[in-house]
């Protein structure tokens, strides 16, 4: 099967007077058609920077020292800005973190949606208006929302407006960064189920980036776990939750509080700094299974069984 998106050895660094912050430091993965691909990790692991890198939204002092982002056979990193613009929104939609707060407070919802659609398609205003209205309906919002201003809507409703706009042009791939942060649990469930529907009802491919493992468990098909600028493990959502292999994934899963769970554990130590990643395996200072080799040689990510990738010397 040909992937929709191939990320090859992508690095995103930020220049500083102390040296480079190596936020994303050599990440590779494939995303296939019609799947929800989850990217999980704690704050500072580089997951949002990874998304910015994929979409080429990195601005100085950030830069991309190496890597390829192949979307439908084309390397987005090499594409002229004009060509990239044609792909964004039409084929590749992005719901950034906190997007619901980026709506213009003095413009009615409908106008904002129409502007975005007209800007990125060949439609005229009338066609765009019709599309905007039908999209609001698709995400379960009543039609009067079109004439409203953002402050009249709740957070979850704004988030649905953003998703409705993002998917209006029926993109092949939708990337959502922390789509449910700051939403109440009940609304969060609604938004997560809406994202899942993008795959099931529209056949889109969805990448969801979140720190919330429980959210991933509910909507993901496959999941990549990031730690310290690297992906440490990739696998089907069932395999990863049932039988995590990387010691970090194991720790992360046993750290999630859940109803009915008597004990949760913590991972001793602290997440390292992107300015100064530990040598060898970046998890070794916190790892209960670390041996000599772990502090010296960085384990490459390897496919150890079909579709299961792990970067750990325990599975070498």
């Amino acid at each position: 099967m040909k992937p929709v998106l191939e990320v090859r050895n992508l690095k995103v660094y930020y220049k500083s007077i102390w040296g480079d912050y190596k936020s994303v430091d050599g990440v590779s993965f494939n995303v296939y058609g019609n799947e929800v691909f989850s990217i999980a990790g704690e704050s500072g692991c580089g997951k949002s920077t990874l998304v910015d890198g994929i979409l080429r939204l990195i601005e100085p002092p950030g830069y991309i020292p190496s890597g390829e982002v192949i979307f439908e056979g084309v390397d987005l990193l090499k594409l002229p800005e004009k060509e990239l613009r044609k792909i964004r929104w039409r084929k590749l939609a992005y719901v950034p973190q906190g997007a619901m707060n980026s709506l213009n407070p003095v413009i009615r919802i409908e106008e904002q949606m129409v502007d975005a659609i007209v800007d990125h398609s060949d439609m005229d205003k009338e066609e765009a208006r019709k599309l905007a209205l039908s999209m609001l309906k698709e995400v379960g919002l009543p039609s009067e929302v079109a004439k409203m201003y953002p402050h009249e809507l709740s957070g979850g409703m704004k988030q649905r407006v953003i998703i409705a706009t993002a998917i209006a042009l029926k993109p092949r791939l939708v990337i959502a960064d922390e789509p449910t942060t700051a939403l109440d649990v009940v609304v969060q469930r609604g938004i997560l189920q809406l994202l899942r529907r993008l795959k099931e009802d529209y056949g889109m491919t969805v990448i969801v980036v979140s720190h919330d493992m429980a959210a991933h468990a509910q909507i993901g098909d496959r999941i990549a776990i990031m730690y310290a600028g690297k992906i440490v493990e990739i696998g089907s959502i069932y395999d990863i939750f049932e039988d995590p292999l990387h010691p970090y994934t194991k720790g992360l899963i046993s750290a999630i509080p859940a109803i009915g769970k008597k004990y949760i554990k913590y991972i001793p130590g602290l997440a390292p700094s992107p300015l100064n990643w530990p040598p060898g395996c970046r998890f070794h200072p916190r790892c209960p299974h670390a041996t000599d080799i772990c502090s010296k040689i960085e384990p490459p990510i390897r496919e150890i069984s079909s579709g299961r990738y792990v970067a750990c010397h325990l599975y070498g």
Partner: protein
Amino acid sequence: MDAPLLELTNVTKIFKIGGGLGLFSKRVIKAVDSISFSIPSDKPLITALVGESGSGKTTIARMILGLTKPTSGEIFYKGRSISEWLKKNKLEYYKEVQAIFQDPYSIYNPFYRIDRVLEIVIKKFKLASSKEEARKLMVEVMREIGLRPEDLLGRYPHQLSGGERQRFMLARILLIKPRLIVADEPVSMIDVSLRALFLDHLISFKEKLGTSCLYITHDLNVASYVADNIIVLCQGRIVEEGDKKSIIENPLHPYTKLLLSSIPVPDPKRKWRELIDIASIESFKELKVEKGCIFYTRCPYAMNICKEERPSLIDVEPGRKVACFLYSK
């Protein structure tokens, strides 16, 4: 029986929204709507106050800490009203009732080394008689919390991670040894992999020091881990109250049921079965129910009476309360 450690009786807090000086105020918001509950004094307990944004949970914390005054109603600590405590025995009150806030950064002064946070406490509550003794005490409490004094003392707040800053607050608590901790979303800025460490300290304070805690959170998963009792808030009112086990295993109020069924379970084998009808559960921001049950518009069991009257919080079993007409005789 002794007076409860903490008791709120019909506490209401009203905010006026819009317009300077309140002259042009368009509307008032009842952030907290005649709430009563108590935390017993006979044994240390962790009581979780669970509610979504806008439920009034943070306002309750601020009132207990004396940071804002209730519009009506009274808050008692050990049988004495808080306003009296703050007027006559302020220092003593804050020796016994301590806070841990959501953002561990905002409470540090960025110009001072973190040591000062502990030094001030030692000075204020006269915990040590000499500098050496103070230093020894600081090192002791930090070690107890699992922080390395040799790495952290002398540093500035921005040099600490969110988790370290929040755990440093625990060291401060350990120094003060209060009777009651009011913790408002204390783990939301801590990495998931380190949350258990923080929560386990709160539990050990309860077990070893006898410190009770009012744990304020939106997260029922965390509440179910840390708490003995749970109070569920919805739009400024208590809808249900009881021990953790019965609330989680047998929720009575339709709102609690909705909350519990909406929590994502961190297990892909237990996915949500049915799609939630988001249009029916989410109301426009401006809309707030003025009459009847606050949950009426979203409730699948709504009856005629629910539209007209506001259900009061009634006892259904010992220690178990619910505000819903489905359970009134």
